[in-house]
């Protein structure tokens, strides 16, 4: 008598809703609301940012880059935290969905980090007169990007994605412990040699700037949730299709 493997048997509620099959079902209902919410937030935020917030007395209109820059910079860090949480899920609970979420978050994180760097550089040109400055925060962000890219390279180096997940989880966790140390050391390193040319704390933050910034941050965060959910679904479906293909191959050829 063959023993049936029923993955849904003996699972608590959390494992149930987070099981890949189940996730595919309920997350489908999430896509549209998230898309609408982020569209609204972007609409409102961008309107505020471009038409209803003051120019900076020093930086003029270029201050508007901030509404893109700061949310992306914030997400660059949030995504890593999310990846680390998924890493725990992979290692401790051996949860199949955690694998997937960890994997799809890396390119998203890299994208947000790239955006933060890119907008920062665009902003740096008019304000500091240079695209790149080895300032502590900028350097730390660059290092974060390198970490994301290293993790992506690692994913792509493994043939067996299941084994890869557990191994990458380990390095992700080692990384999360290290991020504060990196930040601290880079700040310390820079202040040793020369003070920043423009201190970012120098910006005053009246409500007319603060409000759109908050809305934009929220908008980008929702966008991330949307992209993450969608990418997770795509990856699950891709793995399923992969398996299906192999199965049909076998049936055909005996």
């Amino acid at each position: 008598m063959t023993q049936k493997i029923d993955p849904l048997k003996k699972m608590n509620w959390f494992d149930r809703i987070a099981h890949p099959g189940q996730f595919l079902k309920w997350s489908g209902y999430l896509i549209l609301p998230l898309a609408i919410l982020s569209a609204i937030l972007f609409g409102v935020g961008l309107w505020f940012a471009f038409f209803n917030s003051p120019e900076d007395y020093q930086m003029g209109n270029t201050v508007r880059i901030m509404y893109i820059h700061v949310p992306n910079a914030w997400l660059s860090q949030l995504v890593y935290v999310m990846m680390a949480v998924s890493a725990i899920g992979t290692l401790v609970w051996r949860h199949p969905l955690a694998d997937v979420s960890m994997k799809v978050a890396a390119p998203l994180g890299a994208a947000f980090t790239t955006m933060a760097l890119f907008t920062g550089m665009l902003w740096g040109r008019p304000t500091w007169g240079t695209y790149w400055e080895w300032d502590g925060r900028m350097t730390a962000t660059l290092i974060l990007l390198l970490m994301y890219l290293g993790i992506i390279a690692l994913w792509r180096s493994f043939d067996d994605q299941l084994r890869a997940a557990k191994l990458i989880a380990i390095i992700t966790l080692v990384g999360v412990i290290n991020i504060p140390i990196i930040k601290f050391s880079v700040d310390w390193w820079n202040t040793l040699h020369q003070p920043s040319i423009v201190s970012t704390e120098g910006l005053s933050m009246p409500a007319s700037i603060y409000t759109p910034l908050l809305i934009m941050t929220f908008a980008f965060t929702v966008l991330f949730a949307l992209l993450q959910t969608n990418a997770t679904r795509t990856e699950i479906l891709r793995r399923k299709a992969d398996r299906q293909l192999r199965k049909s191959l076998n049936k055909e050829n005996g």
Partner: protein
Amino acid sequence: MKAFLSILLRDIKLATSSFGDMLTLVLFFIMIGVIVPIAIGPDKDLLALIAPGVIWIAAFLSSLLALDKMFRQDFDDGSLLAMRHASISFEAIVFAKLIAHWLTSILPLIIATPMLALMLNMNAQILTYTIISLTVGTPALISFGAVGAAITVSLRRGGLIAPVLILPLTLPILIFGVSAIKTGTGVGTQGTALLILGAISLVTVAFTPFASALALKLTQE
């Protein structure tokens, strides 16, 4: 010809199918550019001064460290032995592998150069020179490298030995490579350096497949 192409295509396919490897190499190249400022301090003038040297060092080290990829796997799994009975000459096979290696390991580095240039505060003109200099000089680099890789492929832990063996031989490439970038070193020196670099590349590319093939044959005794 068909067999020649089949080697070329297979090697490119193998390299791109392990996309992670290519990305890794590019990252390594960029990281060298990043650790230099971190180690020697963020002084911008100083950085601009040493930028051409730093980029060439990064390309130099990355190319040398990528050498091991050229023959290692085919040696380990017995493919190289089996290739000696192919319908084309073994030298032609080695030549095809050399071309594939340049396309999959060196070209990506050259494409990534602008990113490094930006961080090192290079201007557009110098960046252009840098790219030209790398394009002309790297074929010589990996041709020499191929000999080193062939000689050391049978050593079980090849990683660093080929680079160390080849590095002294390739120092001229580094020297002329950097000279071909630096402006203001006197009228014409830049062009001359580039010409010499090109000449070295042509000669080495023509000769090294024979030396590499011979080394591979001997190493398999």
